């Protein structure tokens, strides 16, 4: 067993984990961040996408020991502390970018990281950037529209290029 310190959505957790435990298991089963979904467990659907130091990764392929001392953002940490939706979340709500909602947490985090790197992406760049996130309900068209709208909202609010997730860090919880 291996000690790790994870900073999830601005809160630090000190845990002891099996070295082969995936971040998906730790987030869902140990820490209760059930917004991170398991769709395939092999990296092919993107439903478990979370941000590690700002980069979108598949939590099902990521060992928790590799997240030691890193900053993680799950879907629960994207909205502001006051409950104000992140512009990407708001855009998905307003543009019908979701139906069943199961791919949505991963899709939104993937889109947020894409927009942090590419503040004004083309249609093609959005589609290519989201090719690791499967959606079976929407046909993607409303998702692409949502991401364009989110890019506009981020630019309008002066947040273009901003790394998604909480700024403040709260000291450890066991």
């Amino acid at each position, binding site marked *: 067993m291996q000690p790790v310190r994870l900073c999830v959505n601005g809160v630090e957790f000190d845990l002891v984990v099996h070295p082969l435990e995936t971040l998906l298991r730790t987030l869902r089963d140990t820490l209760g961040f059930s917004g991170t979904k398991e769709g395939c*467990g092999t990296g*092919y659907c993107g439903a478990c996408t979370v941000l590690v130091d700002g980069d979108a990764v598949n939590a099902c392929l990521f060992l928790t020991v590799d997240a030691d001392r890193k900053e993680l953002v799950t879907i629960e940490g994207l909205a502001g502390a006051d409950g104000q939706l992140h512009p990407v979340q708001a855009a998905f709500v307003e543009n*019908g970018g979701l139906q069943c909602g199961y791919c949505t947490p991963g899709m*939104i985090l993937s889109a947020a990281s894409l927009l942090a790197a590419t503040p004004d992406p083309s249609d093609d760049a959005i589609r290519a950037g989201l090719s690791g996130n499967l959606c079976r309900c929407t046909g993607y068209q409303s998702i692409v529209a949502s991401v364009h709208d989110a890019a506009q909202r981020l630019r309008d609010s002066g947040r273009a290029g901003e790394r998604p997730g909480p700024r403040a860090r709260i000291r450890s919880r066991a």
Partner: protein
Amino acid sequence: MTAHIIGTARPRNDARAKVTGSALYTADVALADPLAAVVLRSPHAFARIKRIDITGAEAMPGVHAIVYAGNVSAKPLDFGIKDQHLFPIDCARYRGEAVAAIAAGTEADARAAANAIDIEYEPLTPVTSIEQALAPSAPLVHPDWRSYEHSGDRVLRDNVCGYNRIRRGDVDAALNRAARVVTSRFQFSAGLPGYLEPRAAIAHKGSDGTLTVWCGSQSPYSNRDEMAEFFDLDPAKVRFINQFVGGAFGGKILMAPEWYVAALAMRCDRPVRMAWSRHEDNLHAFPRHGGTATFTSGAAADGTMLAMRASFAFDTGAYIGYGSGAALIATMLASAPYRVPNVDLEATLVYTNKHVAGPVRAPGGPQSNFAKELHLDELARALGIEPLEFRLKNAWQDGDVSPAGQRLTSVSVSEVLRKAADAVGWGKPLAAGRGRGIGATWWFSSCGGSEARVEVRADGRVRVVSGNPEIGTGSAAQALPIIVADALGIDPSTVEIALADTGDRAADGGVHGSTSTFSAGQAAGAAASDARAQLLDRAESMLEARRDDLEVRDGAVFVIGDPESKATFAQLAAHGDGPVVGLGTAQEMSDPEFDTTLVQTHGFAAWPAASFTASAAEVEVDPETGRVDVVQLATAQDVGFAFNPAGVRGQIEGGAVQGLGWALTEGLHYHGASLRDPDFKHYLLPTAVDAPRITAVIVECPSVEGPRGMKGVGEPPVTTPAAAIGNAIRDACGAVPYETPMTPERVWRALNDDIRPL
């Protein structure tokens, strides 16, 4: 005011929960101290079970219960033929079939116990294809089929478990008169529903004998009844609590993990939880039917269709599952929506040792339309008639008669064909390597009955309670709030929704058959009208005004012309005896009349509130690699009346890409009877890069039967894209594979037919 609520695009009432991660799906439900349950699956496609001994496994550490054929009810499950038990008794009939389930303190303990169950199999020769199943001396998937009980008028023999036929006129004579006759043969692959949420279920038997099941069902009320019947329980003592459902597409109509956790929970004093991996979910999936079709049709030189003979064979797998529905629907689509005076349309349903096929979104629809529309294009080409013109010439019109003799009303075939074609620039010049194609269909609406309650609570908030599950379509989370808000003059986003829970006693037929908004919407509308009437009653006495002088808007009842004189919903809820609860129901809809002499063993030969849909596609084909780029895809769908246009567009766009996936990349591959692709690495759902620009055209040609003329929405959009894409491929490059998925290799082979097939 209210005129602007119905028919306008609005966000879903569950959107906030879904974008923040707070929406709970079954695997997210945290109950205290659950047991972990796993399934033991047969490693053989077909094997006699000679012995199962659980005594060693039962004694292993942490094990609480093991269920298998030896200790659960031997009552057969009933899908028209009673050919299946909860666990197989004599033979395991497909690789991955559940033979036992185990509950233990941890999943590792449960797996260890599963591995310790002592089973002796005697492998048998499996039936792995339709051709093999129908061969004279084929092994029998169900050697005892003669002893099975079944309902209705059925054709059963050896590996055949269903057959239906629609016959009208004299096909042979008409073909002899035809200027051109063509014959085309097709093959289609089985396809997964492809929902992103693998199945999960939790069950708990309370000390009072009640059984509670937490799940993501498409049909919690009928599932509850089925389960109560199986375990000999009073249905009132079984409660299904639906969670948010991460997509279903017909794949979550038949129970699966629900059965196993319930059977285990009956023997445990703690909740029993089962959550499948994608691998396990694919092994146990109920896929769209694979099969074959042969079409022969003839037309006069001017393009008038004279006759069609169509014959389908569907592989329904190890048990009948939902095979009957797919086969019935396929024959209903085979010549539609076109005037063909002489038809002979039949479908045969075949057992094999494969997955049990299920009612995947529009069962039989994509298959039948793909074959029929590609075949019709072949005929149009043989006649030298432009494909759209050919279809318009033969398209059903108001008053036409279906093959089974149903008189058709509210027919919009020509309109949807023209609108889909226009949306992709039909007739305009095309770049080199590009082509366009089109296909059309008809479909049904259904209403199996639904009940709803609209509650106006003490704080003035409005809540709609329906048994209609929210599986992603937005029927419960978007359409019902719009309908209720319209009746009560409030903002739809303030209407609280409830996820289906049989404890609410608001029965609903479930999500299937394009029924949800059609039936639950009627019930909710009626309940909201009832609530409105109660509010007005109370306002009459509170405001001392006559009803004609009152209006309902903005969460209050106003005296018209006097904005100061009003009673809020909260005040009205407090005034009078108890809360305001409006009740509404939707009655089951009866089928239209048809000519029974024209059909044989056909249980679905006339369709209420028939709808019409066409898709058109523009594709680019790279002839050297066979790569197909779908440049744009348009679907024009007649929904009669769009209560929830954003939801309709979502159904059309999503259906378009599901249809595209089945057309181009999706297909279950078997090695013999073993599934090659129990994962998303090999089973290729379309990604955002694969999805084209989609134009959704909403056509509103009101039905006689539906609320405000509505027609069912959910299924048709998945049935026409493969047909349009296939025809576009042929238009682009002169060849098309008559086989799905139309992978690049198959397109390349179609273009180079000297190359030996695989």
